[in-house]
């Protein structure tokens, strides 16, 4: 059992036109930088992407948007992409926006074999239009379906040959659920280690969810909003 790929290019090989692809990260935090670049280099087209955000102009999934490889996108917030506006108006991109918690739970449900669940988020809003709304114990909930994918491109801090992954701080975000929700999960890590190096109690994504793993060649880890406080003088 060897899931290790030598390069990001080899790890993303074979993703066909029209595939549904999940991409991990929140904003630019915890995104699979190397896999995104490698995927753009394949020239694949008409992808249906699922990701909380769409990167920013010129970085992260923003680069995929610029490459014209995305036909449809599902996420919760796309406010950082100026290019998006013209594409939506020109109808070259179909965007579906859903509540962030519903997005997270629909992805989790896909990995967990739950085809549908009820949630209170979005009841009475456009989000619930055309969906079943049912009352439980006096409160209304909307029925939401699982959201699976053909491929997931995710990013972890450290991973082993069997695909066990650990994340660092808020770079965890959507990555663990996406790992479980795709037919083929491709993980990039900053550090690839031997099995046994990660404490089994600390594993966040068990290797069963990961089909391919690659150590990223380099990481920019760009900060989107650098907010600082002043050092108090002594």
């Amino acid at each position, binding site marked *: 059992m060897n899931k290790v790929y030598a390069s990001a290019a080899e790890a993303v090989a074979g993703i066909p036109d029209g595939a549904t692809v999940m991409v991990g990260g929140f904003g630019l935090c915890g995104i699979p930088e190397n896999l995104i670049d490698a995927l753009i280099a394949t020239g694949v087209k008409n992808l249906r992407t699922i990701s909380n955000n769409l990167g920013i102009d010129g970085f992260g999934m923003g680069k995929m948007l610029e490459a014209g490889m995305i036909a449809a996108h599902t996420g919760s917030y796309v406010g950082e992409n100026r290019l998006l506006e013209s594409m939506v108006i020109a109808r070259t991109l179909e965007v579906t926006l859903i509540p962030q918690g519903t997005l997270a739970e629909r992805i989790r449900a896909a990995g967990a074999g739950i085809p549908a669940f009820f949630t209170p988020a979005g009841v009475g809003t456009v989000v619930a239009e055309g969906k079943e709304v049912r009352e439980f114990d006096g409160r209304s909930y909307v029925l939401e379906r699982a959201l699976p994918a053909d491929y997931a491109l995710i990013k972890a801090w450290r991973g082993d040959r069997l695909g066990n992954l650990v994340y660092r701080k808020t770079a965890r975000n959507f990555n663990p*659920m996406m790992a479980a929700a795709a037919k083929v999960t491709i993980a990039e890590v900053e550090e690839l280690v031997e099995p046994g190096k990660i404490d089994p109690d600390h594993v966040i994504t068990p290797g069963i969810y990961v089909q391919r793993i690659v150590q990223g060649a380099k990481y920019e880890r760009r900060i989107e909003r650098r907010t600082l406080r002043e050092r108090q003088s002594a």
Partner: protein
Amino acid sequence: MPSEIDAKKRERIVRRAALELRDGFYVNLGIGMPTLVANHVPPGIEVILQSENGMLGVGPYPFPGEENPDLINAGKETVTELPGSAYFSSAESFAMIRGGHINLSILGAMEVDEEGTLANWMVPGKVIKGMGGAMDLVASARRVIVTMEHTTRTGAPKILHRCTLPITGLRVVDTIITEMAVITVTPAGLRLDEVAPGLTPDDVQQATEARLLISDNLQTITI
């Protein structure tokens, strides 16, 4: 200098909102003005801030040189951790929110109406940015406080009989805090509980489309 006036207005709103914090509360603060509430936690009160991208125990902004790309809040700002912080996935984060474990959610609004219905995510005709976690938060936090300027920049009311924009949540707001007033959403309608120093209830009503009930125990806002 209108921006300086705005800054003062916003500081008054934020300071008043901070008085709603209670010891032991788990609190989610929305992007923008609500985030500033963290700077005014009253003495003797310990609150733990949740950020929906997957963190409990959000600390202040980092000192220069100590920022970490892997450590941001839901506004994508660099933050720090505190002793006792915890990280988790987005699914766990919204399980926490949806499950009613967050005592208080403070967020901004474009419109609020008489029933506590909130609109804060979309203006038709403009390109939509997305609702992010707002729909989940307002649906499930135990208490929802809206902090906002009382009227639009052109002076039009934002507290309406009925919301006109696409809504974020139906009958979800508990309390509205503006630079002019503190208003509670009750089954009978909006109740004016506090007015800013120097203002009368009528001043507030003039700036409000929805009809205000006046509290039997009307107070002046003290911050």
